[in-house]
């Protein structure tokens, strides 16, 4: 989580305040909730009084017919109070929840939007799991705050405060005894909830560890079997499992000792009230009805006092979750439209790199590109070749502005990519990456991902170009076939071809193939290349590859080493040059140890 935000303890209050502000965006619901809470508390506190009164009336404090009438009156009031209490408890709970859900809805959208807009450099350094935690668990913590935090404070405040006042003003000693369980239970419950929360987080971690052991075992089951590693695996499993089980047992102990202690302290207070109250009744200082009132009061207060722990928990959770969530929402977006940025206007379709320097934000000391300059015109194909890590893929990332250059500039028809709108830029530049993400939906939707309004014909044609159409129509459900997790699993080469089709749908002015045919077999690649040729006349094509056959037909080939262009020219020129390109060519055409040494 360290990457998402550095949490500071002092920020807790500000965070809670901010949640309250968000909550207040639904003032009516908040007001209804709070009003319901107050009315519900008043009615709730009225019940013991009415019951005590009824007991006294039954004991014949009044006489004859008057007593029966009084009983009827009390009964009617009690019925109305009970119904009222039910209704207001309902509105309190419902609107309390509703406020939370409305807030969660707004936060969900904000998180989603933020995720979509944060630049690559942010996503590079953050684990997807951390983002999922923010978007799911942290959001829950914030959502629950109104119903389990704010609302409960009001509820408990009134119930305990007014209840205590009512009891103590009736009989100070008995009131104190009746509440004597409260401080201990409140303290115990808060402490336990905090401990349980901490151990819960720890337990989740252990269970995650356990599920990782299982997941790897099942995913790598062939390795496990091949090396007869079952016993070894079970040992790993038992270690992880035993640790989690021990902690689960400890949690049971913590919980049980706390609930049992809270229970008995409440019952002890009740016993004391009964005893002292009984003495008072015997001494004639108090009626049985008043004693009954005290005892009922206690049963009403028991739950809220025990829930103090949940309240503390809710505050703790809301403040840590809120901290993380807000820190995420407040993040600066590095790559965004300049104020007043205009859409890219493509006339000639010339791409230029001018003295470009670049280092990834995660490792600013390591220059990945240094002084790279080249130009590609409409209809041209530029090949870029080099060792892994030489910086060739980085070139692909700079054109659609996945990252911003550190020095120099990248232009399309003279417009610096940083001066045009991101949307227009990315519609014009398509980068076909080696690792493509397929969405769990049908093939058609995947191909039309960048142009969801496209007509079927165009989708079919794009996949024909990518040499995928025949395969797709051979599937039982054709373009409707679901890919991914639970659908048909495509081979690496098929995924790459789908990716190519998807990029073609954009009608890009600049098309970059970033090692995007690595898993496609040579024959199919040849056919894709032929199909592309006609397509290439209207745009600039960049081909980044380590397979020379993919790019030797290019108009210009750049050999990149350590972030700089060390050789450039056509295939023939570079072969004649007899340099690094030549060495790589020899290595690929007649592999052997000598060639490797020469290339090194």
């Amino acid at each position, binding site marked *: 989580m360290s990457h998402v935000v550095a949490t500071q303890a002092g920020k807790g209050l500000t965070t809670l305040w901010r949640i309250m502000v968000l909550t207040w965006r639904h003032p009516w619901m908040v007001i209804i909730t709070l009003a319901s809470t107050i009315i519900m508390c008043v009615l709730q506190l009225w019940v013991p009084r009415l*019951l005590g009164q009824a*007991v006294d009336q*039954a004991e014949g404090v009044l006489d004859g017919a008057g007593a*029966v009438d009084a009983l009827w009156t009390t009964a009617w009031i009690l*019925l109305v109070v*009970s119904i009222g209490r039910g209704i207001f408890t309902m509105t309190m*709970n419902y609107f309390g929840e509703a406020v939370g859900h409305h807030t*969660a*809805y707004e936060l969900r959208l904000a998180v*989603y939007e933020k*995720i*979509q807009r944060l630049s690559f450099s942010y*996503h590079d350094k953050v684990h997807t799991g951390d*983002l999922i935690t923010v*978007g799911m668990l942290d959001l829950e913590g914030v959502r629950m705050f109104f119903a389990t935090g704010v609302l409960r404070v009001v509820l408990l405040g009134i119930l305990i405060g007014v209840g205590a006042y009512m009891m103590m003003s009736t009989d100070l000693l008995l009131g104190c005894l009746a509440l004597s369980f409260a401080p201990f239970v409140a303290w115990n419950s808060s402490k336990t909830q905090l401990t349980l929360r901490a151990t819960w987080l720890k337990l989740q971690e252990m269970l995650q560890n356990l*599920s990782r052991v299982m*997941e*790897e*075992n099942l995913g*790598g089951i*062939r390795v496990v079997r*091949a*090396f007869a590693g079952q016993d*070894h695996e079970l040992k790993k499993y038992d270690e992880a499992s035993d640790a*989690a*089980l021990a902690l*689960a*047992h400890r949690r*049971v102990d913590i*919980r049980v000792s706390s609930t049992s202690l809270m229970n008995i302290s409440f019952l002890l207070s009740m016993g004391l009230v009964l005893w002292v109250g009984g003495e008072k009744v*015997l001494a004639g200082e108090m009626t049985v009805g008043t*004693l*009954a009132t005290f005892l009922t009061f206690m049963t009403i207060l028991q739950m809220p006092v025990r829930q103090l722990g949940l309240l503390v928990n809710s505050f703790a959770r809301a403040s840590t979750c809120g901290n993380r969530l807000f820190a995420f929402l407040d993040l600066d977006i590095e790559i965004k439209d300049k104020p007043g940025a205009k859409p890219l206007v493509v006339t000639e379709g010339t791409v230029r790199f001018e003295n470009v320097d670049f280092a990834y934000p995660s490792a600013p000391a390591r220059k990945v590109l240094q002084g790279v300059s080249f130009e590609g015109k409409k209809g041209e194909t530029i090949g870029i070749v080099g060792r892994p890590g030489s910086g060739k893929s980085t070139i692909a990332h700079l054109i659609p502005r996945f990252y911003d250059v550190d020095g120099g500039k990248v232009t399309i028809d003279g417009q610096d990519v940083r001066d045009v709108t991101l949307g227009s830029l*990315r519609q014009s530049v398509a980068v076909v990456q080696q690792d493509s*993400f397929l*969405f*769990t939906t049908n093939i058609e*939707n995947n191909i039309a991902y*960048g142009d*969801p*309004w496209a*007509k079927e014909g*165009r989708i079919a*044609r794009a996949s*024909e*170009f990518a*040499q995928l159409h025949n395969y797709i129509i051979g599937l039982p459900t054709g373009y409707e076939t679901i890919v991914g*997790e639970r659908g*048909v699993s495509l*081979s690496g080469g*098929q995924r790459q071809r789908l990716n190519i089709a998807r*990029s073609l749908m954009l*009608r890009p002015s600049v098309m970059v193939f970033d090692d995007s045919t*690595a*898993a496609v*077999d*040579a024959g199919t690649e040849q056919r894709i290349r032929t199909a592309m040729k006609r*397509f290439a006349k*209207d745009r600039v094509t960049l081909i980044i590859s380590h397979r020379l056959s993919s790019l030797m037909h290019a108009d210009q080939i750049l050999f990149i080493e350590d972030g700089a262009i060390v050789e450039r020219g056509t295939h023939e020129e570079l072969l004649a040059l007899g340099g690094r390109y030549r060495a790589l060519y020899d290595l690929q055409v007649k592999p052997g*140890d000598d060639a490797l040494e020469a290339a090194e």
Partner: protein
Amino acid sequence: MTDVTVNDDESEDRRQRPPRAVVGSSLDREEEVFGKAYDPRIVRRIWAFVKPYQKQIYISVAAVLVFTLTQLALPLIIRFAIDAGMAAGGGGRVVLLWAMVGFAITIAFNFVASWIQESVVGKAAENVLFDMRRAMFEHLQRVSLSWMDKTEVGRLMSRLMGDVNSMQEFLETSVLSVGDIVLLFGIVGVLLWLDPLLGLVTMATMPVLFIVRLFWLPPAKVSFMAAHHTNSSANGALAEGINGVRTVQSLDRQKVNFDLYEEKARANLRAHLRAAKFAQVMVPIVDTLTGISMATVIVLGGQMVLGHQVEVGVMVAFLFYIQRFFDPIRSLTMQYSVFQRAMSSGTRITEVLDVPVNIEDKPDAVALTGQMDGSVEFKNVTFGYRKNQPVLKNVSFRVNPGETVAIVGPTGSGKSSCMSLVHRFYDVWDGSVTVGGTDVRDVTQDSLGEQVAMVLQEPFLFTGTVIENIRYNKQSATREQVIDAAKAVGAHDFIMSLADGYDTKLEQRGGNLSLGQRQLISFARALVADAKILVLDEATANIDSYTEMLIQRALKRLLEGRTGLVIAHRLATIRGADRIIVLQNGELLESGNHEQLMKKQGLYAKLYTMNYSSFDDMPENGDEAPPTGKAT
């Protein structure tokens, strides 16, 4: 074929039809929406896991009973204190004191019983869960690979974690629901005993609540499930947005996705509000019924007290019981849903436990030792994964000790199946596979694993350090041996350049290494295993030429002094082999060394002269047939 870029979309109607777009998975979850009804078979299977903790269950049921009885007793003691102690003409202080003694004893029992019931049940439930999970995991270590191939890891994981967890709720609450039933009957009994007439009238509301809940439960459950589903659907879309963020941004899809996501989020909001309505609508109903019961006690009971038909303490006790009255009904109706959920989880758990284990050691299986000669022989092997669809047809060949044989052939020719059979991942339909002259079905699987090392096409690394991955199952290997192996396959240099050298922690599946590097580590692992026979499936992925060379060198070193069976994709590997076997459509087409096969002018020669970089590239029919199962 016209150019893709021709604008054939009538732009004016573009935005009027809905986009072909979804966010999040468009597939439904496999999980059943409404649990399962009672199934005695499943219950028996679950009981088998509970049985070892029988004693604990009895103890906690006893504790629950004691606990419930003390709860029932408390209002009675209060009643006794009032009627026998405080009332006019009562026993006064002495009786009150006795009442207090009774109260103290009762709460002492209450304390102990509550401690025991929760602690014993809670721990036993955890134990049962962990036992179940382990039984499933252990079973999965033995089930056939063909079953594993068909089953997604994610699904299994949801059974191992999700379903086991949903049993927890059931196990913990089922003992407690015994208490609820006792409490319910106890209250009914006590009220009738205190005063039959008043009891009956007061309890008239109880069946009303019961009936109301019966009508309420089904639609309420639907709304709760809907809330749950829209939640996972919105979360699924969020997860997809996170994982696919680069694609989303590079294809400029943010706007469309946001709109789609908003729909999901709104559906989620609506479902939750609806569920909240259902949950809360019960509150005023219960409160009204409680109010009616209390009002009845006041009017009827009050008049009875006035008429001296009952004592005032009875009325107080009634008022106390009424407040507890509806709790057991509520938890019992809830318990039914918990039970249904547990039944469907139980079904899925037993499904896993019931997957047959087809490949087991024979009772008289012998251990394969390092003394055997290291030959591998296929004799008339016929084998397949699906009935009547053999993948290998009557294939025979022999690999002599120390020889390297390359198997080549187009995708689907049955190469990978050969490899799996040497390791007895599956049993042949007909014929036999022998290792060192012994049929693989007659040796123990463990010893086979020790003598036959395997390198898979997709190198699989575990979370852990580099050294742990290389050593894997060979715990006896010293650090020196591991380092020697890494040096031999040319992995030492890059390992040393990692942050902590051999002790560098690998991320999940070795994510912080390149494919080539992972390959080299898996070579080192095979070298450390030091088996007589090496079976290797060469990677098809196009690795850059430099790494490729390193791998070729490592391969040479790895095969030295071993019998090698290599599923080859690279010309370099094939030419280095002693013999080449060409498979096509599950049949052995030709075999011999490079020169012999070239002379033969068969498939091999054809593929070779076309200068394809890989033997998987079939000329002419470039479009693959749709996948019809796991062929190779």
